[in-house]
């Protein structure tokens, strides 16, 4: 079988706790695969280690043991191949919105001419609807606009993998909805592989091909991998009409409310990989089988060699 685009193999992270003999084991021996072009969301209660996984993928943090292989190469340190959008936007406040995007584009293609860099950067800012305010400094932009700049910067560098750490966590519900739509739009044009942390179940269903569920920490694990086989393109208003929507949603909420705690500290039955679940396939009346537009994740994800 071909190797998956990204494989997380035996990832373990411990922190040596102050004044305690035993280390804090955030998670232990996590295995995961992500396919090219897949949009994966990860949900879990706060403190279970989601950000830690994401930072390891970004190369900003190192695992205690285990490793991550992307595109045949082991991840060692940060790289332009992996773009990151943080919850707090991480824009450089002394640069305008446009200059912030240019900052990324210039780093990605140092040999481009000034004009080409700027044109490329403008294009992405326009894509997220910021064409009119690209000369403003981050302090003069609302939280939602800042996060759009941050998304534009990440997409403009065209990384192989895009990492988003609760990108909409600090935004109000209305703004979040608008930016989610923009994220879908820009993503459907680029077909980038996305790994996104969220704590919003509806957001995950709207965006993801697959949702990973983590048990509570410490000693957390990715217990389930839930397939979201709702047809794309998805629209917020229509998706909730879909008969499968609440099946998926109930499954997720049930996990978060009950099983995430019950399963805490236990091991996966297949030691290595999360259990694959497709809430719609279990349905007694078959749901109209609209083949998902980008269903690369159809096959079981137990393909580690």
């Amino acid at each position: 079988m071909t190797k998956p685009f990204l494989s997380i193999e035996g990832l373990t992270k411990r922190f040596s706790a102050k004044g305690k003999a035993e280390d804090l084991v955030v998670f232990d021996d996590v295995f995961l695969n992500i396919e090219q072009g897949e949009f994966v969301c990860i949900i879990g209660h706060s403190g279970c280690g989601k950000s830690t996984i994401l930072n390891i993928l970004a190369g900003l943090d190192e695992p205690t043991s285990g490793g991550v292989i992307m595109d045949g190469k082991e991840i060692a340190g940060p790289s332009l191949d992996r773009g990151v959008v943080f919850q707090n936007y991480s824009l450089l406040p002394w640069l305008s919105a446009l200059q912030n995007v240019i900052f990324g584009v210039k780093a990605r293609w140092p040999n481009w001419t000034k004009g080409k860099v700027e044109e490329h950067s403008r294009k992405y800012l326009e894509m997220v609807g910021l064409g009119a305010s690209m000369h403003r400094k981050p302090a003069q932009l609302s939280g939602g606009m800042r996060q759009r700049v941050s998304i534009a910067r990440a997409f403009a560098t065209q990384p192989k993998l895009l990492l988003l750490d609760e990108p909409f966590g600090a935004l109000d519900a209305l703004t979040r909805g608008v930016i989610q739509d923009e994220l879908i739009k820009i993503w459907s044009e680029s077909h980038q592989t996305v790994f996104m942390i969220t704590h919003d179940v509806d957001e995950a269903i709207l965006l993801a091909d697959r949702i990973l569920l983590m048990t509570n920490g410490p000693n957390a694990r990715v217990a389930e991998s839930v397939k979201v086989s709702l047809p794309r393109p998805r629209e917020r208003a229509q998706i909730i009409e879909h008969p499968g929507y609440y099946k998926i949603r109930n499954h997720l909420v049930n996990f978060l409310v009950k099983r995430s705690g019950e399963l805490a500290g236990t091991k996966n039955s297949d030691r290595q990989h999360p259990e694959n679940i497709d809430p719609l396939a279990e349905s007694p009346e078959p749901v109209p089988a609209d083949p998902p537009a980008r269903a690369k994740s159809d096959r079981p994800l137990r393909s580690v060699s």
Partner: protein
Amino acid sequence: MSLNLRATVVSLLFLIIVLGIWETLNQPPEATEALSEYELLMGGADQEARVPPPSQVAEHAWSELSNPFYDAGPNDKGIGIQLAYSLYRVLTGYFAAALIAIPLGFVIGMSPLMYKALNPFIQILRPISPLAWMPLALFVIKDSERSAIFVIFICSIWPMLINTAFGVANVRNDWVRVAQTHELSPLRTAFTVILPAAAPTILTGMRISIGIAWLVIVAAEMLVGGTGIGYYVWNEWNNLDLNSVIFSILMIGFVGMLLDMALSGVSRLVQYEE
């Protein structure tokens, strides 16, 4: 009336009151009695105790300012020349200090090892009055001009060094991560992320330094003599020319204010809002 306008009116009012009091209190006493022999020898009784009134100072200031650059020998130079000497010393010592303090502060701010290693030296050297260096400087450098510059150097280095190190060490980790995820080299990170991020703090240090340097140059020039505004004040005191003393005090304040305004102008350019 806007606040600014009202403030200006109140300022002027204070100025007029203070000048008025000064003027009336310092009228020459009427010569009621005949001067004693001693007083006659000293050239008049009122000479010793009386501060010249503002009208006299203003008159003197006008004549000095209308020809600030005259040069009539070592003991009689225009105020402009004296200020220029002082400014030259201050700026030379100050920029030499900046040239060392800012790069060194970068290193200290970025490396916890260097911070810990150099901190004891900084803590001991910093509280030393810059003038305490003067004898040693004169002995080693053997040149009063350069010794004065050295004293300026040593007094302006600390605020810049400490502020640079502090600013660099406290650059938000998010911004460093942005540099890392964009694979910037350490040098480019230093120039495109850390320098602009720390610039407001560095400029604050530079502003404190120029203020201290201008305070210290007056004292240093009183010690080494020859030229400069500090020497001028002391020399006019020896000549008992209080008009010139008061005039030069005001000029020291005025130039100090200009230096501070220049630095605050630069610091506004690098300021950013988070």
